[in-house]
């Protein structure tokens, strides 16, 4: 699947396109198919996102997993500070990222 991602203008937080808006949770990502570039341009123009781009991903039983490690780290947070990630209470959170 193709996932659209970028950063929130105000906070810089990593966000993922859900089909109707933006989410902090990669698991809510929509498959944008061939429409990623057009969506990115529209959403950037509307100030909803900064630096939007399309990445490859895969829908698994555990959730949506970006194909590249860089995007997986973006989805979770720094692997060396799990306390600062989206899964701060899960000591095994980095397992699906690395």
């Amino acid at each position, binding site marked *: 699947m193709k996932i659209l991602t970028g*950063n929130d*203008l*105000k*906070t*810089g*937080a*990593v966000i993922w396109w859900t089909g109707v808006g933006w989410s902090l949770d990669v698991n809510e990502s929509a498959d944008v198919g061939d429409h990623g570039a057009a969506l990115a341009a529209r959403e*950037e123009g509307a*100030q909803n996102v*900064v*630096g939007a781009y399309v990445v490859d991903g895969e829908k698994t039983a555990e959730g949506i997993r970006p*194909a*590249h*490690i*860089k995007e997986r*780290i*973006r989805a979770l*947070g*720094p*692997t*060396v*500070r799990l306390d*600062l990630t989206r899964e701060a209470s899960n000591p095994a959170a980095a397992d699906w990222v690395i």
Partner: protein
Amino acid sequence: MYKYDEYDQQMVDTRVAEFRDQVRRRLAGDLTEDQFKPLRLQNGLYLQLHAYMLRVAVPYGTLNSAQMTLLGDIADKYDRGYGHFTTRQNIQYNWIKLEDTPDILAELAKVEMHAIQTSGNCIRNISSDQFAGAAADEIVDPRPYAELLRQWSSFHPEFLVLPRKFKIAVIASEKDRAAMRLHDIGIRMVRNDAGEIGAQFYAGGGMGRTPMIAPLIRDFVPLDQLITFSEACLRVYNRYGRRDNKYKARIKILVHELGRDEYVRQVEEEFAHLLTQPIEPPLAELERIKAHFTGPAYDSAASDDLDLTDPDFRLWVERNTHAHKQAGYVIATVSLKPVGGIPGDATADQIRLMAKLAKDYSFDELRVTHAQNIVFPHVKKADLYTVWQALDEAGLSTANLDTVGDIIACPGLDYCSLANARSIPVAQKISERFGSAKRQAEIGELKLKISGCINACGHHHAGHIGILGVDKKGLENYQLLFGGSEGADTSLAKIIGPGFTEDGVVDAIEKATEVYLANKQGEERFLDTYRRIGMDPFKEAIYG
């Protein structure tokens, strides 16, 4: 240390107000990201992997306790309770909100700090010897000259849009503690045969994807021509540095392609021309600046005795302190490399504690080192045990300076949008593998540096052992390099062979240290043994 005059303060305050308005216009939709990006970068604000990152300048690595305290407060108030000290003697915050940035900059301005020119193709923060003003081996304190260059390079209208970023280091001792020859311009303050102080210029050094050691381009520049000669160096680069290819745009490429002699010829020609122009500030300005750097009021009766009965304290003193030019005092370095920790990171509480200790025991001064540690430059020996105890309680007493545990590491793929691989986990595993004090003492000085991409923010080219993280078909892979050095014997490390996994590179380093210990002669460091026996014995042990 230097104190802003009304012009300095006005410049910084004006920039804060200007950026506040730019942020307002961006948030209101009046500026696009393409329009805004160069503006935020000029104020040190990057968009990194997880959030905005703010890089705050620490000119020549010098801070007072009020500044350091504020750095801790910013970490608490605007970030997530910590800061990251960098290889350019700066500090970075990883979780900054755009809308908070003008307020942060305004708070920094109140303690005479800013984030100006910490990004972009301009002259960046001037770096220096972290022991400046305290080192027993320096000719003069290099910081007044660094400050003069800071003032010259700040908002210099001709050099705000250079072909690429430009980094200058200034030192004043034979021993190079600032990787001076790996800078775009490296300056060593020297004394000539007539006893006059002047500047020795090196140009065209750097790391990154094409590492180069800067050649000497002028042996002696008189103090009343320091800025004029610097201007000539920059002008030739600005005129002929490549703008068509960012990978070939640094001055090192220009000097290399022109050849050192032709670059020097052009600089001297430009210098001769500039000498006819009244651009050099009067020496009185340098004297005004120097007056800010007079040494602290040392206790001339301070005792040179040090009670070393506490074995942990003794180890720390042996490892983390250096001789001071004043009897009865030492230079103490706080390692930000605890076993298994993140190199260069300090919590807000730790930052504030170091500020307080500096205020109470180091004449209100601290330094940030390019090796991502903190220095108390002037500690009375009689106070050292008290300082150490406070550091120990705060987890800041790691006795590993310049050993295998004192690793330089860039933020890598855990934070940086340019990185190809993570650096920090590798540093953590190495530091744990070699965590025992006995092991580190046995191995001795071993400078290990890790970069998560070819941009080399982790200085891997200059490591006795360097590690470069690369992306190999979507997987992290680590190349190992041996033989780099950043000191008086500056050399560039060479790749030893095929890369490794994260665990594999840690194993390889362990094998390398075994080869070193088996072949070491006398007091040889790892680097010395490597230079004597060459790469083959290491390759044989590592690759079989």
